[in-house]
């Protein structure tokens, strides 16, 4: 009996976005990373509709993390004070396709470092690695508006992905990202309506929709992953049905969210198995789940989780074949 053809087809697609600038394009990256382009849901339709395979961005913090559990800090213990070496380790040893510098240390409660520190870190990482960069603010609006424009300037010409902008705080970073020719991350608090609105607001300032990546906020396994999953899924379906305000590739912050879970980090829990295994497993499970909803870039932290997820991606997106 022939198997009936039940795959749905769509008229729209996720935008294709190429991050990073090589020499020819005025930057110093050795290669670029292209994401997006899907014309169907994950596992849906024919292989040529799968678009680009998702990529992993590994987190590098601008200053030594104060609250990382031992299981997470252990692989990085020799580089935690040196963002350049840290980034190099992620790329060379763990195969990071992008580096995401998280400017945690500029937050008033987490070090209150100034713009010159942030610029220095940006320059160190740019010099240490040649993959494209993501530049991620601390989330404290006033400080971000002081520091992130300087960070943007320090990486001018590198076609970085910079963010995040929100419904309440988007003007200054959108303007500077536009001027410095970076790509922009629009953020929403697990709210699809606000997500669309932020894209419209950025677009109203003249920022091209084709240069935006969306961040819907992330929930880890056991901590709201179903909300994140359904929003990512809805965004993908909106893109596929032609909503140009929702046709951007998506990024998730899996590393940070997974390692907040007590199941990932609590050492004293005899019934739960070894703590050295639990964290990476929690992080990998969260990433694999969200990838299936339709996410293009995953921010991650633990090398073992990264290896697991890279393997998963290589199997599912084999030669563009989901």
């Amino acid at each position, binding site marked *: 009996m022939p198997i009936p053809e039940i795959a749905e087809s769509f008229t729209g697609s996720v935008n294709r976005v190429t991050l990073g600038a090589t020499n020819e394009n005025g930057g110093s990256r050795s290669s670029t990373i292209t994401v997006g382009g899907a014309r169907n849901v994950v596992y849906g339709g024919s292989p040529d509709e799968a678009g680009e395979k998702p990529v992993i961005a590994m987190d590098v913090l601008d200053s030594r993390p104060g609250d990382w559990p031992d299981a997470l800090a252990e692989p990085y213990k020799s580089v935690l004070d040196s963002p350049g070496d840290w980034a190099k380790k992620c790329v060379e040893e763990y195969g990071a396709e992008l580096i995401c510098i998280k400017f945690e240390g500029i937050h008033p409660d987490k070090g209150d470092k100034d713009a010159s520190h942030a610029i220095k870190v940006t320059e160190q990482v740019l010099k240490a690695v040649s993959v494209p960069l993501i530049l991620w603010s601390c989330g404290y609006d006033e400080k971000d508006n002081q520091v992130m424009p300087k960070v943007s300037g320090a990486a001018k010409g590198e076609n970085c992905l910079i963010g995040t902008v929100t419904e309440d705080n988007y003007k200054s970073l959108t303007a500077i990202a536009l001027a410095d020719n970076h790509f922009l991350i629009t953020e929403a608090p697990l709210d699809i*309506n*606000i997500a*669309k609105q932020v894209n419209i607001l950025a677009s109203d300032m003249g920022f091209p929709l084709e240069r935006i990546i969306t961040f819907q906020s992330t929930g880890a396994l056991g901590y709201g992953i179903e909300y994140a999953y359904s929003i990512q899924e809805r965004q993908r379906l909106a893109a596929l049905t032609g*909503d*140009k*305000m*929702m046709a951007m590739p998506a990024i998730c912050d899996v590393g940070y969210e997974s390692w907040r879970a007590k199941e990932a980090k609590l050492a004293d829990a005899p019934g739960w198995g070894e703590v050295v295994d639990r964290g990476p497993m929690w992080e990998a499970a969260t990433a694999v789940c969200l990838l299936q909803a339709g996410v293009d870039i995953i921010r991650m932290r633990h090398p073992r989780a990264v290896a697991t997820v890279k393997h998963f991606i290589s199997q599912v997106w084999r030669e563009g074949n989901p």
Partner: protein
Amino acid sequence: MIIIAERINGMFTNVKQAIAEKDKKVIQELAKKQTEAGATYMDVNVGTAAADQAGAMQWLVETIQETCSTPLSLDSQKPDVIAAGLKVINAENGVILNSTPLNKKSDEEIFDKYLEMANQAGPKASIITLTMDKNGVPQDIDTRVAIAAEIVSKAMEKGFNTQRLFIDPIILPVKVPNAQVQPGNILAAMDQIRYLSEPAPHTTIGLSNLSQGASERSLINRVFLAMAISRGLDSAIVDVLDKDLMNVVATAEMLMNKQIYSDSFLKVYSTANGT
């Protein structure tokens, strides 16, 4: 929502005059305005005045395509006028052949001719078919649905994808004596038409006809459009330059969860929906 903009039609005096005088500017201006207002397709109807309808159709198509790439809906009941338009059209982004009845006394094969022309025009060519046959326009629900069913089965027989098929249940002016029952009949017929195939055929209506000769035309059109969208209508031939009407489309689509709500939902509708 697939919005077919109605304004380039020889029934309007300025278009009629522009066709007679070969005045490109009037037509290109209308094409630009309708595209900006959110037209997915632009209807092209030479009207009845032109002596050489095929020639007028070609001139309109070429004139519009000189400045505008919005796909067109070639509007004529005469196959040779449609064929003339198709000769000069760029159908890469799609084209609609608008429209044919199931059959008519003088031409039993007319639907076949439209199917043939659509197939030749490429994979993105669609047809609007009227729920009308050699006995004329049906007044009741069942005959409309029965004709629609025949249209769908004939298209499927010929291997024509039902996603390229639009069914127009023919809306009549509400002001005509005894016609007030018709809008309700149309809605009831639409409820059934969408179950005729999987995927369902599109449904479309020539909205402005509803309010022909009536007072409060725009209001009548807007309210009926919202009612029809709630019953699954996914296309309409409308005056896209009627801003209030387009706002109703945006709002109804949002309320039916066809578009994701955002605070700027009115403003972005045409951008998000346009081609």
